[in-house]
């Protein structure tokens, strides 16, 4: 009698397990998915918006102290920096045959200075593996400064470290063209301002 009851109990448990197993598996999978989604959505541990803002302010001051006034004004007003290429026939400077646009945390975009034709994207990053606050990402302006320093110091080395792609892989080519047009307008306006007030704008005595 005891043996029969025991056997029946074991059979019952096995049957119940077989019935419940698919539901249990689905529930566990759903919990796992929800947990991953939650992890992805939440900011990195220790993220503090105020601290990040202060970090960016420090980075901007450092950038400003390193580049010249024209370049700083360009970054402040337009949000990117232009660096003339130095490997062409004309050397670095306004005569250079090509230039780069430096955006924070985006690839360098090379283009022909005269025509504005886009050449390549150079995808490069400066990850700090020590991750002091849980992130390896430098403040935006530090990223721009790191690219600027590496480009002006050793363009060949930086380009060698980067992954090269055709234009449009990460940075929208239309956006770059718009930025080049903005840059041209900005420089013309700046030249006008530096030249002083126009004669026809001086009020008559």
């Amino acid at each position, binding site marked *: 009698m005891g043996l029969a009851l025991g056997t029946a109990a074991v059979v019952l448990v096995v049957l119940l397990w077989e019935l419940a197993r698919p539901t249990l598996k689905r529930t566990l999978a759903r919990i796992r998915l929800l947990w991953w989604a939650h992890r992805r959505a939440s900011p990195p541990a220790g993220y*503090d918006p105020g601290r990040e803002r202060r970090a960016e302010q420090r980075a901007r001051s450092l950038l400003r102290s390193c580049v*010249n006034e024209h370049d700083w004004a360009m970054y402040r007003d337009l949000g990117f920096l232009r660096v003339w290429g130095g490997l062409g026939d004309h050397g670095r400077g306004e005569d250079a045959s090509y230039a780069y646009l430096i955006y924070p945390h985006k690839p360098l975009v090379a283009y022909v200075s005269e025509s504005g034709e886009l050449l390549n994207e150079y995808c490069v990053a*400066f990850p700090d593996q020590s991750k002091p606050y849980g992130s390896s990402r430098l403040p935006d302006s530090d990223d721009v400064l790191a690219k600027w320093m590496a480009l002006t110091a050793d363009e060949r080395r930086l380009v060698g*470290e980067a*992954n090269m792609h055709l234009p449009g892989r990460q940075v929208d080519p239309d956006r770059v063209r718009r930025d080049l047009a903005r840059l041209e307008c900005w420089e013309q306006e700046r030249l006008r301002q530096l030249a002083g007030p126009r004669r026809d704008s001086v009020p008559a005595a």
Partner: protein
Amino acid sequence: MKLLRMKPGHGEIVLAEGDVAVPEQELELIEAFRRELDAGMWAAVPTAAPGGRREAELVKSFAEVPRDAERVIFFPRAAGGAPAAQL
């Protein structure tokens, strides 16, 4: 001379500061410099050329740092970003 390091979530921090003409201070600067290079950092010295042009110079040892440099900036070494496209 100041040795600065870019740091995520902080901006730059001062690693060491001293006068290269004072041997003890120069030694401290050299030690801090080596520590950063050993940690895989790149070191750059911002420079100002005549005519207002600004550039930077990458240095691989303290001996390469110009004696009159006001600061050396350390930043993480460059790494290729997004992986190359699949062919």
